[in-house]
């Protein structure tokens, strides 16, 4: 027998052991759905801290001196906020949360390939979060060098947390990478090796493609961060000089823990390593949100995704090119200008497949039977926001423009639009869409719409002015702008405005959390497959699906993922597991 078939029969014939005790059901559960929910809850809680930290920074910037926020607190908040949002919230929720929940269900598998490793993954994630927050307890508090952790600054006396904060940060990130690797190996293996019969790669829902490719990116990009972290840790703990150059502070040669001088290291090397991870990381976040939005748009506009194959190849192109653009973050770092030319070119090239995806979404909506459900609001909002962010990126991708704009609020505005607001919109849309599958109830539409409009409109009120500040030359990572003549009064006023807007938007986010909790207990109960979706996760016998997902036989897939509004079919959707003959004549299936 073929090995693969062996897998499948072994898998189907298995009698599933259902856990009995509370502990194995909810804490040490190996069920991918429980693991996903653990990821969801923990990352959202961590995200709440991230939001609160951003309020701390905005209060200081809007009303300098009024709230007694020290420079150290400010810089520590910046660092923790950035790390939390990028890694512990977005990476964790999009891959650990959505990835775990959707992959086995959408592919018609019973679980992840290695459930035990999967369980370990979420526990390591929890440990990394604990380590992250434990850095508030060590002497000197967390590091304040910014989420990029650039040496030599990060190890210089004067930077908050230069002694122990940075150690905790690196440990926490390293544990996170281990957690990610354990999860990631699972996602990739599951996608490659344990799909249902008939589920060819080219019939996978786009969100699975996206999560799969994002995981591949992660598995290849996180090593660079790990290595950079290890080397930085050694510079700090055993006195090596990988990244620390000969550097003088107050006329003194800076020394390591053993009192000998740092000499000859290369801070630029750190930046290369960091951004070799950092830029792909951007796509680790971006791809899953592309995927979620593709699902939402196709399902709620009742239409096959325009150009499925093109979408897949565009994703693969983005994945590949995302590894050769990293140094566009370093145009002003002092590298060779020839390199700048190369990286500017690749950066602009990656905009092509990205734009293809946006066009395809828009063309999918074209003349579609659009249902303005809450997930659809979020999806459309996402497209708008993402286009704006992408356009900002085109400015920054050109060296000559970026030299002016680098390290200003323009950059802050840019990456918050693409990496702050866009993922939040996609993520909230996804939660609204899949909530019934997880709980059997729908989320409250009214609260959903308030949250959507608040976040969508608020995002523009906050980040468009930030672009403007940046054009005005206001630099990022400044504690306050007192006494800087070129920062005019109107720019100060704008900062006040941004602060007020961001407080409102920040508070509105709690509405979303409230909606989740409230709907969990009180939400309207719904029937199976409330959105009339075609993908497999809605076709399980029970909703929410039980342990093992498919009680008897695994499903067999007969068609592509988006058979909506097929001409001649009796309903406007045909699930993937309905055989071809079953539909009425004339109904052609999209492949």
């Amino acid at each position, binding site marked *: 027998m*073929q*090995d*693969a*078939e062996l*897998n*499948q029969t072994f898998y189907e014939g298995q009698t599933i052991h259902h856990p009995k005790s509370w502990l194995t059901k909810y804490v040490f559960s190996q069920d991918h759905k429980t693991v996903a929910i653990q990821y969801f809850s923990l990352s959202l809680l961590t995200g709440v801290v991230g939001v609160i930290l951003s309020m701390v920074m905005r209060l200081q910037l809007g009303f300098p001196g009024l709230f007694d926020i020290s420079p150290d607190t400010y810089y520590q908040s910046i660092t923790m906020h950035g790390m939390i949002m990028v890694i512990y919230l977005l990476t964790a929720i999009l891959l650990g949360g959505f990835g775990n929940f959707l992959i086995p269900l959408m592919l018609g598998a019973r679980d992840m*390939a*290695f459930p035990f490793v999967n369980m370990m993954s979420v526990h390591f994630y929890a440990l990394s979060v604990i380590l992250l927050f434990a850095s508030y307890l060590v002497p000197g508090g967390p590091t304040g060098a910014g989420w990029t952790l650039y040496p030599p600054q990060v190890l210089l006396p004067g930077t908050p947390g230069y002694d122990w904060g940075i150690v905790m940060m690196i440990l926490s990130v390293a544990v996170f990478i281990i957690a990610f*690797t354990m999860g*990631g*190996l*699972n996602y*990739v*293996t599951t996608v*490659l*090796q*344990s*799909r*249902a*019969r*008939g*589920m*060819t*790669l*080219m*019939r996978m829902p786009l969100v699975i493609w996206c999560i799969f490719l994002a995981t591949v990116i992660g*598995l*290849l990009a*996180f*090593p*660079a961060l*790990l*290595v*950079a972290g*290890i*080397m930085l840790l*050694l510079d700090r703990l*055993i*006195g*090596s*000089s*990988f990244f620390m150059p000969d550097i003088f502070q107050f006329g003194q040669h800076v020394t*390591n823990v*053993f009192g*000998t001088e740092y*000499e*000859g*290291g*290369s801070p630029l*090397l750190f930046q*290369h*390593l960091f951004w*070799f991870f950092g830029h792909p990381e951007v796509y680790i976040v971006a791809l899953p949100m592309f995927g979620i939005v593709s699902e939402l748009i196709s399902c709620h506009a009742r239409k096959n995704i325009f150009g499925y194959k093109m979408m897949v190849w565009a994703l693969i192109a983005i994945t590949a090119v995302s590894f050769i653009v990293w140094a566009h973050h370093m145009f002003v770092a002092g590298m060779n200008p020839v390199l700048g030319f190369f990286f500017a070119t690749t950066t602009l090239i990656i905009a092509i497949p990205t734009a293809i995806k946006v066009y395809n979404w828009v063309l999918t909506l074209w003349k579609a039977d659009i249902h303005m459900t809450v997930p659809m609001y979020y999806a459309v909002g996402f497209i708008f926001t993402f286009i704006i962010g992408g356009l900002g990126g085109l400015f920054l991708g050109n060296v000559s423009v970026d030299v002016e704009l680098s390290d200003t609020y323009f950059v802050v505005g840019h990456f918050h639009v693409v990496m702050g607001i866009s993922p939040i919109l996609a993520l909230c849309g996804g939660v609204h869409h899949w909530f019934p599958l997880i709980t059997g109830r729908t989320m409250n539409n009214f609260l959903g719409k308030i949250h959507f409009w608040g976040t969508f409109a608020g995002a523009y009120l906050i980040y468009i002015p930030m672009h403007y500040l940046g054009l005005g030359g206001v630099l990022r990572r400044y504690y306050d702008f007192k006494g800087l003549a070129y920062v005019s009064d109107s720019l100060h006023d704008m900062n006040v405005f941004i602060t007020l807007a961001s407080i409102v938007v920040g508070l509105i986010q709690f509405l979303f959390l409230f909606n989740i909790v409230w709907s969990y207990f009180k939400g309207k109960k719904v029937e199976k497959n409330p959105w009339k979706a075609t993908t497999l996760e809605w076709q399980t016998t029970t909703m929410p699906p039980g342990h093992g997902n498919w009680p008897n036989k695994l499903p067999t*897939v007969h068609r592509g993922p988006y058979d909506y509004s097929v001409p001649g079919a009796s309903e406007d959707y045909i699930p993937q597991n309905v055989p071809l003959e079953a539909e009425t004549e004339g109904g052609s299936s999209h492949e």
Partner: protein
Amino acid sequence: MNDLVKDWSSDVSTFKIRWSKAMMWIFLISDTFIFGTFLISYMAIRLTVVDSWPDTSQVFALHVGGTDVPLLLIAIMTFILISSSGTMAIAVNAANKKDKRKTGIFMLLTVLGGIAFVSMQAFEWTKLIVDEGIRPWGNDFGAQQFGSFFFMITGFHGLHVLIGVIYLSIVSKRVLAGRYDGIDDYQIVEVAGLYWHFVDLVWVFIFAFFYLW
């Protein structure tokens, strides 16, 4: 090309291999990036430091019978590690033939090779630290990054060997105890073998770039 894409994207499984083997391959690719990044960082620093890089054949020489023999110890270590890859291959071959005893024995031989390698590395480290006075923050031979890169990279690799030794011991014990009879055609031995060959392969690169360059 089109057919290749079709084959790979067929249903159920892309590669006609066990899950565990697929996972090990993916992990090793990821791990390749870790070692790759270490080595590239090393090369980048070595090319840019101002101080001269120490003469490796002098630093790594072993004093035998009155003369310094360059790279003697490291040659023996490399030889042992490569041989252990050979014994591992024999073990995998025996596993495919379901020869439990032979598999177990050759895996244990591999483990012995690994232990010998790590012990000799411990000896080398002691010699460099105690006799030659090489420290992560400096040494008498040249650029101070020499010591830190050396300890970091060989240490990280040594850790891999150590983990491999433990991993292989567990698997070989289970093989000999007959745990895989019936349920599995000893694929697990092959998966362990993949890891071991990978660790050896990485060593070849470290050897070439660190000792011979």
